[in-house]
């Protein structure tokens, strides 16, 4: 897949996205079987910026796992 540098496509305002981003971070961290809150889901359907952050988090965590740095977890 070719990576695209996307910086211009903005869907929501800063005020709208900030609380959603916090929810996305929390949802990403604890996942998985729970539903997204209704208001977050509705915002995400129309906001590629927040979806982009969520995809980035998921991709980064997979890559970090592949790095084999889980051995750092000792202790």
């Amino acid at each position: 897949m070719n990576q695209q540098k996307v910086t211009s496509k903005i869907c929501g305002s800063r005020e709208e996205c900030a609380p959603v981003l916090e929810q996305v971070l929390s949802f990403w961290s604890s996942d998985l079987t729970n539903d997204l809150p209704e208001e977050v889901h509705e915002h995400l359907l129309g906001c590629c910026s927040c979806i982009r952050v969520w995809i980035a988090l998921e991709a980064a965590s997979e890559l970090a796992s592949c790095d084999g740095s889980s051995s750092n977890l000792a202790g």
Partner: protein
Amino acid sequence: MSLNSDDSRIQKLIHYHYKKNKHLSPVFDAEDLYQETWIRLNESSETPPAVPAGLSEEDLVGQAVGRAAEKVFGKLRKRSQRKTAGEVQLECDPADCLPDTDLILDLRKQINDLPSDERLVIEMMRSGYEGAEIASCLHVSRQSVSRRKHKALRRLREVLGDEAR
């Protein structure tokens, strides 16, 4: 995520499950308990696919983004299933939702650089463990688990910066 029997997380999980199940029987076979723990760990972990040799970092990032996008849109679709068709349409072009490679690499570095106690909490939560279970497993308070989680998320939030404006 590679698993080996020397991994301290497995030792901690074994200890946790031993404590949780020791009431079952005085003759409960330790090997069965070990296997049960192993199965649970494997079922709950999101094991990334094996990395074929010769792939560039760009290829790896691209593949990870593809899987991540599939997962995210899958969750959005699943969440939408209880609604009517008119309410579930994605209003933006999925192609516009692809993250910048630099952002992914910055987040990856931050995850790798998280203090081990914070990363352990995040990984266990992403594996499906509740805060109370993690606290019991790590012999710390629930408040400590919550604090570690929030510190880790704050570090990641700093990497995101103005990404979400």
